[in-house]
Every structure is written in C-alpha cells, then in structure tokens.
C-alpha cells in the first residue's frame, strides 16, 4: 500500500501539520456525532498517509464489521479541494446495525429505506463537519454531492466490487469515532487525489512558513 514513486512524499513536518488539520476536522465531526447520539464519542489520532486507495479501502472493510458484513456511506466533495469521503459503520462483537440505528432513533425507523436514510444523514453530518473543518483552516471552500449508500449489510466481497475510486493513489486520512460502552461508531476515511494533494501541500507550506 505504499504510494506511487512519482507522487512526491510529504515531509515529517508536512504530515504532522496535515494530521493536526485533520484532527481539528475530526474533532468537529466527533462533536456532531456525539450530539446525534447524545453520548460522548471517543476519537482516535488521525492516520494520514499517501496510499494506493483501493487497497486501503479493502483493508478498512476487512476491519469494519463482524462476519464481514459492511455498511458504508460515501460522499464526494469538490470546489477548492476535491476528493471522496467514506463512512464505514463500525460494529464491535456485541453490537449490530440495529443497536446503532435504534440508539439514534429510539422508536424506529422500521423499514430498510428509513434506516438507510438515517445512515445517510449521519454520514452526511460527519463528513460535512470533518471535511469542512479541515478545509476551513486552509481558507479553502468545499461543497458536497449528496451522500449515497455504498454498502448496506453487504458481504465485504460485494462491497469491494463497488468500492472503486476514480483514482489510484491518494492522500488518505483515517480515524475511528466510537462509543466505548456501546461498541459502535464509524471509520471516517477521506481520500484526496493528486491535484488536491498539491493544493494541500501549498497550503501546509504557507501555514508552516516554508512556502
């Protein structure tokens, strides 16, 4: 999963700065997620690196759920920066998708469509807070396409067939937001393709005073 040789690697300082920017965005996402769940959320330190995007998604899907059942929402963003965010719902050994959905909507929702609508809305809120918080610090504008269900209680194999991203190599940020006692939460992945990587590199250099 190492990055392609002709994608210029980030320096340790640049990666540190990117991790901090991602951390602020993820902190806002965690706050929004906690508001939605009405319970505190734990956030991990963002993992930021250049990757082969498809292999990275496959790894996350393997990690995400019991018995390889995966539920995920994807949403593209564009404007000053572009890329794609994927929210993979995380379920521990003692949690199910119902546990999560019913925690958010106590008296339902009952139908599959209503559950998917809720998962889409959660994904949308998490992605908006995170990517918006990230871009704002660099003075960059970002807008979003509507979120879509990438997988709903799907076998990971079938998800992999639909997880193709439009680019091979990307800068990725990965973080896990979860409720400790309930064993549910989500992985938040954000992929930034090459042209956006260059904009981020310039923005980071300006912040670090090394431009």
């Amino acid at each position, binding site marked *: 999963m190492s990055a392609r040789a002709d994608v210029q690697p980030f320096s340790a300082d640049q990666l540190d700065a990117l991790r*901090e920017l991602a*951390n602020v*965005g993820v*902190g*806002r996402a965690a*706050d929004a997620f906690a508001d939605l769940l009405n319970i505190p*959320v734990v956030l991990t330190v963002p993992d930021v690196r250049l990757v082969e995007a498809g292999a990275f998604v496959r790894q996350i899907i393997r990690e995400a759920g019991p018995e390889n059942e995966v539920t995920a929402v994807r949403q593209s963003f564009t404007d000053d920066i572009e890329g794609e965010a994927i929210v993979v719902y995380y379920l521990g050994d003692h949690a199910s998708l119902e546990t999560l959905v019913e925690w958010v909507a106590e008296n339902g929702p009952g139908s599959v469509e209503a559950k998917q609508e809720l998962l889409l809305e959660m994904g949308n809120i998490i992605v908006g807070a995170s990517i918006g918080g990230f871009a704002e610090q660099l003075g960059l504008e970002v807008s979003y396409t509507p979120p879509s269900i990438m997988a709903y209680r799907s076998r990971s194999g079938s998800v992999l067939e639909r997880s193709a991203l439009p680019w091979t190599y990307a800068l990725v940020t990965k973080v896990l937001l979860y409720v400790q006692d309930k064993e549910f939460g989500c992985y938040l992945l954000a992929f930034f393709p090459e042209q956006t990587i260059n904009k981020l590199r310039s923005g980071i250099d300006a912040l670090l005073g090394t431009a």
Partner: protein
Amino acid sequence: MDLLFLDLTMPDVSGFEVLASLQADGIRFPIIVISADVQRASQDRARALGARAFLPKPISVDKIKVLIEHLRREGKL
C-alpha cells in the same frame, strides 16, 4: 514544571489518562488542555481531572498569551 499544555488525543496514551495520573500524584502546576475534541463531555471530564483551562483547536499564540497572563494574575504562575 511551571505549566503543562496537554492534548487529549495522542497515539499511545490519552490525555485523560495523563490527567488522572497527575491528579493521583497531586498536581502542583496548572494544566491547559489543548484539543480538537471539543465535545462538552470531554471538556467537563478534563476539568474534573484537574485541567485548569481548555483551549479548542485551532489555537493561536494570542489565545495562549492571554491565558498565561490570566494565570499570572491569579498567582498560578
């Protein structure tokens, strides 16, 4: 030590664990938590564990200067 700036989200140990450990040892210096984890519950927990102040990221040097000046006036530094 005069003053400690502490993040909550760290790779190997959480800021809460550090605060709890320092509290158990008897904190004798002010601790300022600087974190992107802006959840109200996290801020309350940090304060309950002895954090003197909570600065949400992103922070500015000016904010830190103001806070240090405030601690000086309170005689904490």
